Every structure is written in structure tokens, then in C-alpha cells.
């Protein structure tokens, strides 16, 4: 085990290298570019024996790794925002062909206006595409989750693609100390990919996804549905096994529980700003507020049961959303509402377009949420609240 100072992007590249990926294809887009730039350097220097395929678009990048994965290779691609949207069609081909492609998404707002800073709307647009979707909180976690993504996606019980989201700039361009396991250790833990569910190779012709009766489509979706349900258990197993072996200090499972023991109020979040929410929780605990944080690590498969348990033991919850679905509420807000049986859930939309939200903002958001609940105002929570303290119109 080595301790290195790495930016989030370089940490992801380091994990891809340790996973001994066979084929990499990507198209540059800020803030993701640094990931594949570093991988290109590794290939150029001969440190990484991968085929690096340059393409003219993200649609092609995903198509290249789709083909390579169908041929039994371990693959990687990465993108952000508009690039991810350009891949959209291929995302579904990958899932519905059940290929364990791994992709990193350095999250970035979608234009217009042009904006290179983070929010979660890009990554969450693929919510229904059948990918396993993880959100990292720290650089270490981006590293760990990328490595684990191969073990999870390639597992015979799963066979689904995995996307790991790391907040653009906040994680992708920030350097943190990262514990990096030795090559031989990783090679032992993550053996070469077994080419499942099939391997396309010369001389053995077959078609993937040929035209068939309608019921076959529905039955194949049911097949993937079951895999996604099993993936919950596999994620728990793989992340716990990883943490036991490499002890990098990140959480495992689908949800991280922070100060939730005996909490009366619960904040729920994903991604990098969860670190700031934790600071706010600490500050509020000192002031006597019984607040805890449930940090969702995997948005798909969604931790229904875990959240239902957490919600049932608190008075109220607030979902901190860095994404929005116009005409309804925050994307995470609606996800959490759907599993809450009786607990009122407030939804706060903040940090859209990379607007900075500090732990002080979270203190004020969380304090406001508790005070509203205690004043009997939770009936107003059916409409999501936008947190924009610099705007005076009310």
C-alpha cells in the first residue's frame, strides 16, 4: 500500500491501471479530460498495456468499448455533461446487452449557458438506463469505487455496466492523499475478466439482440431487473471485502450512515458536498440538534430498504438535491419520497450550475428544516424549495 497525493481524475486513472483494463476509448470534455489524458500518458509510457482508441465523439467512444466488451475485454471510458448526453443511445445498448462496461463521469452542469462546474443533472439523466450508478464523496472513494466497479459489474450475479460519478472540479481537480494498493494485491483480488455473458470472436458467428418477438424484450428486462436487485447484495459484499483487505477508510454498502444513531432528523445527500453536510451535522449536534446524515453511495440500484429503515426512525428528513426535474422536484427528492412510508420529506434544491454551497449554508438549511418541522409547517413540503440566498425576490 502506497500513499499518494492525487487529484480525483488521476486517482480514477490509477484505479483503471490497477484493474489492467484492455481497451480504453474516450473523447475529451472538461472536467473529465484529465482522466483519459493521464491514461493516454500511461499507455504511451508503456506502464499500461491497454489499447487506447481515439474517436470522433462520445457516442463512438461508448460504441468502441461496447464492441471490445462484447469481445471479452475489460474496458473503460469517461465523460461529462454534454458528452454523456451524446452517448445516451449507446448507454442502453450496453445495458441491454448486459456488458460490464465501467465509466467515470466527472459531473458537470448541462448548458446553456455554458458551464463547466458541477451539478448532478448529467449523471442522473441515465437513472433509467439500467446502469449501476455510484456517487463518490472523496478522491479516495472515487478510486475505490472505480476499482470495485469492475468486480461488481463483471460478477456473474450482476453483469451490468457501472458508472462512477465524481463531482467535476470539486473531486476531479482536487488533490487529496489516496491509499493505493500494490499491483499484485489488486491482481489477486480482481482476476482477469471472465468473458460473460458472451464472447464475440472470429469463426463463431452469432447476433446480439436480433429482432425477436415482443415478449422476449420484456423477459430480457425482467432478467436485468433481477440482476439489479442482486447487485445490491454484491455491492455490499464487494465493498466490504475490499475495505477489509485494503483498509482505505471509505464506507461500504449502498448508504453511509453518519451520526444517524438516535437521530431525530435526517439529511440525505449524494456526492462530494456530503463532506460539508457532515461538518454542518457536527456543528448542529454541538448546538443540541439531533441531526444525522444518510449519504447515498449508489443511486442505482436504489437503497430502498436501507432508507425506509432510516426514515422510519426519524421525525422528518431533508433531501439535499444538486439536480432538478422541472415541474416536479429534485431528482433525489422524488426518489426518497417514493420510499418514505410516513415520514415527511422536505426537498431543497441547491448548488445548481456549480454554485458553491458551504457547510455554513448547510447549517442554515438544516436548522431551517428542523425549525419548520417543529413549528408544524411540514405540510408545505410538497413543493420543493430552492436555496438561493443571494436572490432577494420572494
Amino acid at each position: 500500500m502506497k500513499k499518494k497525493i492525487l487529484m480525483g481524475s488521476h486517482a480514477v486513472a490509477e484505479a483503471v491501471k490497477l484493474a489492467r483494463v484492455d481497451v480504453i476509448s474516450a473523447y475529451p470534455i472538461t472536467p473529465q479530460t484529465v482522466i483519459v489524458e493521464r491514461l493516454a500518458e500511461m499507455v504511451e509510457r508503456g506502464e499500461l498495456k491497454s489499447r487506447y482508441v481515439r474517436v470522433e465523439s462520445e457516442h463512438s467512444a461508448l460504441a468502441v468499448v461496447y464492441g471490445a466488451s462484447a469481445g471479452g475485454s475489460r474496458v473503460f471510458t469517461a465523460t461529462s455533461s454534454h458528452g454523456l448526453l451524446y452517448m445516451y443511445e449507446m448507454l442502453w445498448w450496453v445495458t441491454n446487452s448486459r456488458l460490464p462496461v465501467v465509466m467515470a463521469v466527472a459531473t458537470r452542469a448541462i448548458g446553456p449557458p455554458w458551464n463547466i462546474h458541477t451539478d448532478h443533472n448529467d449523471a442522473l439523466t441515465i437513472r433509467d438506463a439500467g446502469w449501476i450508478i455510484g456517487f463518490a464523496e472523496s478522491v479516495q472513494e472515487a478510486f475505490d469505487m472505480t476499482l470495485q466497479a469492475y468486480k461488481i459489474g463483471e460478477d456473474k450475479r450482476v453483469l451490468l455496466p457501472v458508472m462512477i460519478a465524481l463531482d467535476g472540479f470539486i473531486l476531479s481537480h482536487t488533490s487529496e492523499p489516496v491509499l493505493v494498493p500494490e499491483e499484485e494485491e489488486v491482481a489477486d483480488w480482481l482476476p482477469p475478466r471472465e468473458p460473460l455473458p458472451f464472447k464475440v470472436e472470429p469463426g463463431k458467428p452469432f447476433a446480439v439482440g436480433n429482432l425477436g418477438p415482443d415478449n422476449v424484450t420484456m423477459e430480457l428486462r425482467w432478467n436485468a431487473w433481477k440482476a439489479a436487485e442482486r447487485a445490491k447484495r454484491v455491492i455490499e459484499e464487494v465493498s466490504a471485502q475490499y475495505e477489509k483487505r485494503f483498509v482505505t477508510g471509505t464506507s461500504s454498502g449502498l448508504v453511509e450512515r453518519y451520526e444517524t444513531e438516535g437521530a431525530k432528523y435526517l439529511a440525505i445527500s449524494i456526492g462530494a458536498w456530503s463532506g460539508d453536510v457532515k461538518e454542518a451535522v457536527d456543528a448542529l449536534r454541538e448546538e443540541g440538534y439531533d441531526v444525522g446524515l444518510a449519504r447515498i453511495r449508489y443511486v442505482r440500484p436504489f437503497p430502498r430498504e436501507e432508507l425506509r429503515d432510516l426514515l422510519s426512525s426519524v421525525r422528518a428528513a431533508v433531501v439535499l438535491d444538486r439536480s432538478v426535474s422541472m415541474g416536479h422536484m429534485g431528482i433525489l427528492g422524488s426518489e426518497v419520497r417514493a420510499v418514505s412510508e410516513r415520514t415527511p420529506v422536505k426537498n431543497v434544491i441547491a448548488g445548481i450550475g456549480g454554485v458553491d454551497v458551504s457547510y455554513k449554508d448547510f447549517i442554515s438549511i438544516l436548522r431551517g428544516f428542523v425549525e419548520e418541522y417543529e413549528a408544524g409547517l411540514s405540510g408545505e413540503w410538497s413543493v420543493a424549495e430552492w436555496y438561493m440566498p443571494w436572490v432577494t425576490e420572494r
Partner: protein
Amino acid sequence: MGMRYVPSDLEGEANKDLEDLRNKLLSRPSPGASGPTGSWRLFRPEVSAAKCVKCGICWLYCPEDVIAWTQRELPRIDYTYCKGCGVCASVCPTKAIEMVVEGE
């Protein structure tokens, strides 16, 4: 009644699902893998023995591989699978293939 899935024997269920997935997702090459597509046909290609020079261009261009041809014989069209697209008639250099309305 509907179906609900709660994983119990992960390994065993995964093995069954993998087999099911391969059966439904993959198809091996075989004649008429999508059924008797000849029923889709509105126009039927008919080869004129008088005009045909047995060049094999129709055989080469047929997108469905339903034309059998050797250098000494007239092309033979498999009407069970021919969809009647008309590519053969279009590429024939001697206009030896006529598209006839089906049923006439």
C-alpha cells in the same frame, strides 16, 4: 398474477438467468431466423430465362441471401424468405428480373 423478485439463492438464480439471457439475447445464423418473411412481399421478382445472362449480379446484391446461382444456371429465388425489395431487379444489367404484383 404479477411477479416479484426477492433474491435468495443468488448463485443459483444467476446461473438460470445467465442461460435465459443467452437464449433470448443471442441468435445463431440459420435460414429464416426471423420466420417466413416471404409473407411480407408485395412484389415478386420473376426471372426471364430469355433475357438472363447468368452474370450473378442479383445473387451478389440480394440483401437477404435468398438467391441461389451458379454460372451455368438461372438464378433461383427462395420465395419463402424473399421480401420483394426489388434490389435484384434494380441491379440486373439486362432487365431480366421483373417485379410482378403479388397475387396477379
